[in-house]
């Protein structure tokens, strides 16, 4: 098992690429930088494929495959290894991260081609791949936390990539700070895990958590506390209420970054972490309810904001928040497999949507406002068709990848809570509406830009190729679950079953017990109909009678303002949290404590030493006889002391 034995090579390849470009690449040509960056990710993808091939031929009793390379920390009973772990869940994440990451690297080599920060960009992007791979390959919570923090750092660096722009710097800082809150919850959860189980290894913690008695509903026991703390971490990283506010602002980063970090991979780390810890969550029903409700609320809430955004990337950003909400909804109702399934299909179609949006922005020479686009379908056909595929996928058109994953989530939700299911259906309709609105505003209708100023052109081949590959994946990515439609096996669920079964036998049997007939109904069921309604409404409002939106906005001005103002959550946070915090920091912490106490103590010590030194200086007269006098006085004092002590 060469690659599985030397698993560390998979994360190390991008790290080597990042280090080479970052440290030595100062005088390298653009071609060399591209070669280094792309070959490191290509090799990582190849290594991941090889690892998966080896993994698939494994006997079941060797899974999860855990490889400990060295002991990282020992302190008392605490011990953390540099251990990597591969099981079915890791395999899926590994393929998504290295595969989509590789495609986006290729795309970036075209998109960022004329950027002066080309080398810096690729070195950050490779570094991100390294940390993300550490996150998903980690065999214990502490190593996972390293990856978790590392991707946060790279996210910050890449959001603030155009650091001369004040708004980009602010957005980077905002993302970093909001994530700090979540990360604080996560590390507290990890500490509580150690306190409860005495170890942080997944292989030890999760079976023990599964064996523990379930916390009664409504009662916060230790498992519920752990689960809730971990979920706080997930809300930060995966942009859920109340910590979602950083993700829309993160669109200040270059578009490939939005695609890779803020749509396909990093933001799904929270979902991955919750699924990884599903044994804990399953024994904490209260935490599960919280996860489900927050997920559903976020899905609906973000979708409504997405309805009225005019920036093409902002629509996609709120859509991402909303889809992440779906994944947490799945986790909350115990359908962890469906959550991971949606994570994967979402990585395909949302990555594609962002890349296609990047291609549109590229074609428009940097314009992101959809009101200034229109009629681009004929000018950039490849971008249009790939984006159309992705839109169908996210809207849940039958046969496309999003259809299978979304249906599965809603199906499972129906068993648990009709309310969550209903809100999920509503969200599906809204999703379909705002996505087709985006598509119609951008590609259909009359052109609303000045042709003399904007030279619309299709993107180069290295940008189109990833679009096409991702479009194929967006269409076919869900077919693993397709046999279920005619009463067959959901291959995806079956593949993940060993990971999720170990602890969640009840949930798994319940979900497989659902049977194929319900899904056959779902083909013409509520989600599809909701999606169709959303499409028709978008078509009517933006193609049939394009003056409707304006009239609607005028007649419903209060709700419209609420939505376009994003529910004024940012303003609310600014008044309730940020301003008091700034006031406390400024008045009390800075001027009282820092200036008064800390600086006072430091300056006081200095003043006392200076003053006493000044006094003592006079002793040093330069006169030899006075020195001699001091010596004699000293000798006399010590001699008399000695005599006195002897006597």
């Amino acid at each position, binding site marked *: 098992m060469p690659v599985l034995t030397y698993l560390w090579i998979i994360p190390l390849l991008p790290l080597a690429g990042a280090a080479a470009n970052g440290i030595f690449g100062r005088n390298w040509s653009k071609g060399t930088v591209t070669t280094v960056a792309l070959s490191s990710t290509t090799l990582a993808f190849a290594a991941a494929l090889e690892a998966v091939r080896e993994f698939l031929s494994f006997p079941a009793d060797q899974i999860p495959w855990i490889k400990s390379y060295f002991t990282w920390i020992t302190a008392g009973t605490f011990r953390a290894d540099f251990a990597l772990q591969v099981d079915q869940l890791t395999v899926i994440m590994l393929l998504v991260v290295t595969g989509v990451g590789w495609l986006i690297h290729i795309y970036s080599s075209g998109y960022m081609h004329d950027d002066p920060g080309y080398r810096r960009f690729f070195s950050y992007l490779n570094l991100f791949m390294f940390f993300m791979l550490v996150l998903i390959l980690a065999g214990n919570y502490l190593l996972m936390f390293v990856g978790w923090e590392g991707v946060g750092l790279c996210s910050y660096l890449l959001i603030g990539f155009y650091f001369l722009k004040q708004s980009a710097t602010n957005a980077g800082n905002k993302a970093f700070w909001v994530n700090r809150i979540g990360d604080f919850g996560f590390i507290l959860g990890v500490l509580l895990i150690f306190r409860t189980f005495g170890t942080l290894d997944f292989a030890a913690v999760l079976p023990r958590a599964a064996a523990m008695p379930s916390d009664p509903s409504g009662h916060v026991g230790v498992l519920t506390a752990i689960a809730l703390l971990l979920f706080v971490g997930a809300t930060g990283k995966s942009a859920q209420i109340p910590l979602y506010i950083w993700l829309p602002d993160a669109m200040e980063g270059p578009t490939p970054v939005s695609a890779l970090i803020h749509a396909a991979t990093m933001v799904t780390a929270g979902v991955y972490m919750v699924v990884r810890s599903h044994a804990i969550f399953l024994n904490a029903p209260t935490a599960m309810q919280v996860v489900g409700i927050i997920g559903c609320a976020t899905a609906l809430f973000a979708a409504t904001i997405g309805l009225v955004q005019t920036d093409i990337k902002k629509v996609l950003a709120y859509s991402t928040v909303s889809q992440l909400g779906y994944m947490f909804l799945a986790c909350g109702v115990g359908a962890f497999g469906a959550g991971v399934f949606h994570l994967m299909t979402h990585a395909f179609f949302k990555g594609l949507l962002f890349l296609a949006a990047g291609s549109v922005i590229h074609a428009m020479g940097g314009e992101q406002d959809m009101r200034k686009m229109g009629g681009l379908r004929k000018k950039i056909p490849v971008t249009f068709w790939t984006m159309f595929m992705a839109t169908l996928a996210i809207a849940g058109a039958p046969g496309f990848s999003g259809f299978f994953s979304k249906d599965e989530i809603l199906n499972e939700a129906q068993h648990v809570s009709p309310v969550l299911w209903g809100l999920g259906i509503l969200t599906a309709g809204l999703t379909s509406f705002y996505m087709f609105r985006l598509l119609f505003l951008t590609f259909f209708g009359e052109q609303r830009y000045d042709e003399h100023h904007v030279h619309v052109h299709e993107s180069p081949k290295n940008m189109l190729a990833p679009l096409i590959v991702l479009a194929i994946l967006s269409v076919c990515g869900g077919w693993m679950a397709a046999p279920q439609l005619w009463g067959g096996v959901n291959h995806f669920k079956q593949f993940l079953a060993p990971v999720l079964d170990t602890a969640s036998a009840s949930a798994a049997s319940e979900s497989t017990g659902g049977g194929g007939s319900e899904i056959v109904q779902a083909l013409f069921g509520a989600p599809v109909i909701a999606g169709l309604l959303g499409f028709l409404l978008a078509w009517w409002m933006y193609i049939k009678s394009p003056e409707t939106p304006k009239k609607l906005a005028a007649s419903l001005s209060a709700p419209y303002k609420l939505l376009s103002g994003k529910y004024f959550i940012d303003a609310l946070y600014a008044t309730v949290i940020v301003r008091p915090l700034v006031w406390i920091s400024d008045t009390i912490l800075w001027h009282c404590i820092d200036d008064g106490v800390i600086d006072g103590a430091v300056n006081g010590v200095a003043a006392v030493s200076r003053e006493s030194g000044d006094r003592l200086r006079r002793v*040093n*007269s*330069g*006169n*030899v*006889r006075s020195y*001699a006098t001091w010596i004699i006085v000293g000798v006399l004092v010590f001699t008399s002391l000695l005599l006195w002590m002897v006597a």
Partner: protein
Amino acid sequence: MVPTSYYLVLSAVLFGLGVIAFVFKRNIITIFMSIELMLNAVNLAFVSFSRALGQLQGQVFVFFVIVVAAAEAAVGLAIIILINRNRGTLNVERVDSLKD
């Protein structure tokens, strides 16, 4: 036979005179001589103890002290001559550049 304590008292008196002269005199030559006086007061104490205890180490030590004193005289007088040449004075109060 004169008791040892007499020698020791004489030694202490000589040493005390040396110290007083060292502290109060201004002329470098005089200070130098007071150092010699202190050294020889110590020599006297060594010799008296040597005789009182019947051991030779004290007397051997005196030779060392005399040798060191001779070396010190050679170096010290040279320094004094240089000070006199450079500053035109032997007043120790005007030689205070150590404080800078």
